[in-house]
């Protein structure tokens, strides 16, 4: 099973999309979006993994060597996680403001009110 990790990443992406489509509350949609984003993190790290080698951090006991896991994909993923938290904050603020203006937290009812 060499491709199990990739399929888990694809599953997370699709189930996140399913949650967004079927959501009845705007906050539920934002959290489902976060689940879909975590699928991309799993895919990135799975691409960079090598079996039986340590993490790319050197110290007094680990001498510098190229037999480590790929550090480039890890660098991409860790900034992505923090930035996506603040973008989710922006989406939640949008949901709060929409609820205040229209009095409902159901995205289906929001579309009906626009007319």
């Amino acid at each position: 099973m060499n491709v199990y990790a990739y399929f888990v990443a694809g599953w997370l992406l699709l189930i996140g999309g399913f949650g967004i489509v079927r959501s009845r509350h705007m906050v539920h949609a934002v959290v489902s979006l976060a689940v879909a984003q975590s699928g991309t993190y799993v895919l990135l790290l799975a691409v960079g993994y090598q079996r039986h080698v340590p993490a790319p951090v050197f110290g007094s006991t680990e001498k510098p060597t190229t037999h480590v896991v790929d550090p480039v994909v890890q660098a991409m993923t860790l900034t992505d996680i923090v930035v996506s938290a603040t973008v989710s904050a922006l989406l939640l603020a949008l949901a709060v403001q929409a609820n205040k203006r229209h009095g409902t937290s159901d995205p289906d009812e929001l579309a009906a009110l626009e007319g």
Partner: protein
Amino acid sequence: MTVLVALSLTLVAIAGGAVVLTENPERQAVTYSLLGLALGVLFLVLQAPDVALSQVAVGAAVMPMMILLAVRTMRKDQRQRRDEEDS
């Protein structure tokens, strides 16, 4: 593939499904922090300690707090709007 990696991947897949299938957004905050913990364990097993630290800090503390605050604010605003319409 080692058993640990396969187990962590399965745990993440199950947790992701659980988060999406939870309808109540307040309960989703708790399930989301469990998904964050499972992802942290997976990232650690995949030899990525920086990413695991980032994920646990964000997914277990910041995101659930924002989710719960947003849900509470929305419920409070709906209740105030209902009280104004009744009076």
